[in-house]
């Protein structure tokens, strides 16, 4: 067996392990899938009436909620990665010659899958609540692609944070900034309604172009410039997260 197929097989075994963890841990399921749905109900039925946006509020909010749902599931991953490092199981894998890439990739892929399931739930419940997108099949595909890329990028960042944290608890906390970022973007209200300072931050932070791209695709009016910015952010964050994760792993294990 070549090294590449071995690594691939090991990654698949690790991914299965992490998926089992997710299913066994109800808190993870709640945090990653149910909590974003609760947020959606709150934003659409409680706050939404007070916000002034073009068109129906749910059509405006769903793209932001999709991004938020991705970030909400990251905390458990950071904690799980940290647990692997601090509870000795990583030494077992290392002594068994399981490539470290496989251990990390297992977390990244299972987290990405979990994020996409959370997004599917948002879209499904969104439809039931009156969400009516106007995307063509190709635009849907592009939107799913953006979600996948963002989930992949934030998963690598989260794995790096989990590796860097000293304890399981602080690892979970480390992802809070990622959870906060959608609130400081155009996810729930347009950036130009925000106060000075915050407005500029919201305009230039990575999540705004990503949310705007999703919004454009789902309403059927995508903008190439924003889409390219979003794409660049996703790829950039993935590379940064990957390099950070690998460097931290080498230092620790």
């Amino acid at each position, binding site marked *: *067996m070549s090294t590449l197929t071995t690594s691939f*097989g*090991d990654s698949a*075994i690790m991914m299965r*392990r992490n998926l*089992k*963890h997710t299913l*066994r*841990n109800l808190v993870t399921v709640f945090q990653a899938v149910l909590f974003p749905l609760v947020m959606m109900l709150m934003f659409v039925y409680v706050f939404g009436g007070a916000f002034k946006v073009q068109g129906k509020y749910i059509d405006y909010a769903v793209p932001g909620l999709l991004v938020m749902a991705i970030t909400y599931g990251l905390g458990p991953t950071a904690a799980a990665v940290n647990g692997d490092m601090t*509870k*000795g*199981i990583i*030494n*077992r*894998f*290392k*002594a*068994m*010659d*399981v490539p470290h890439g496989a251990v990390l990739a297992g977390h990244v892929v299972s987290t990405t899958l979990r994020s996409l399931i959370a997004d599917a739930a948002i879209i499904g419940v969104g439809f039931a609540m009156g969400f009516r997108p106007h995307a063509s099949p190709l635009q849907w595909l592009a939107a799913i692609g953006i979600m996948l890329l963002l989930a992949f990028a934030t998963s690598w960042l989260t794995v790096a944070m989990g590796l860097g944290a000293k304890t399981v608890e602080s690892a979970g906390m480390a992802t809070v900034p990622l959870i906060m970022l959608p609130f400081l973007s155009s996810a729930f209200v347009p950036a130009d309604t925000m106060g000075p300072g915050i407005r500029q931050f919201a305009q230039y932070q990575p999540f705004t172009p990503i949310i705007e791209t999703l919004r454009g695709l789902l309403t059927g009016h995508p903008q190439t410039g924003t889409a390219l910015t979003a794409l660049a952010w996703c790829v950039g964050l993935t590379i940064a997260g990957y390099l950070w994760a690998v460097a931290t792993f080498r230092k620790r294990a």
Partner: protein
Amino acid sequence: MKSSAIAVSGLRKTHGNKLVLDGIGFEVPAGSVFSMLGPNGAGKTTTVNVLTTLTKADAGTVRIAGHDVATATRQVRKVIGVTGQFAAVDELLTGRENLRLMADLKRVRSGDRLVTRLLERFDLVESADKMAATYSGGMRRKLDLAMTLVGDPQIIFLDEPTTGLDPRSRRTMWQIVRELVAEGTTIFLTTQYLEEADQLADRIAVLDQGHLVAQGTPEELKRQVPGSHVRLRFADLFELDQAARVLTGATRDDQELTLRVPGDGGPRSLRALLDLLDEHLINAEEFSVHTPDLDDVFFALTGQTTTEAIAR
């Protein structure tokens, strides 16, 4: 020539500016049990980590089954199994799933059969489908060791396999180690207990603050340690005087009103001792038997007790 399963020479390792291993060396013949004995902080776990490719040494060579750990890491990892000091089991998986994970990673064909066999061997069948998080300390260690055995490693490293276990689980662990040796596996184990090393090991090395202060068979080692003794306490100096006159060769302590009588501590010699006291109508207030423990070994070999060694 049959090569050693483990050959270590001039092994040095520092953590920061603290010297953890100061040029230790030893050899372990294939199919034997080698025990590294030492208190907390002596460098036992560091030794295991270097030998199992988890940590790189600063100097010295380590060969496992003939492969250099530094240059042939992959070959080394193929022949070893490691059970670390803290049970490295996946708590969110069941016992069966933990074993299955190992079988999958080792690409064991007919993994199911192997898993069932290991569950039976380690008496874990009843809890096989419960999450490892619900296991007791002893069950975790058993599962951990069972996981280590997947893939039939030639050389197994056990880092303090019985620390924190109750006496019954400890005996089970010992039994498993003996079975493994009978199958031809080489075992390297670290322990804080002289009794454990004595029970299991063909050869013992005593590690103290990064130095090997003694190596040999259990018998050779125990010869260097003051033997067991009986301690007698008396009501007053008069009784002590009388006893000291009868029991020549005993060491007396006037302050404590005690006599320290060397002996093997066996029932026969104890009866003889008590008969002798009776014969001379001497009454002892207190009577206790002391067998040599790690503290005695350390005192004998390093001139200091383990507690001092830790404090320094």
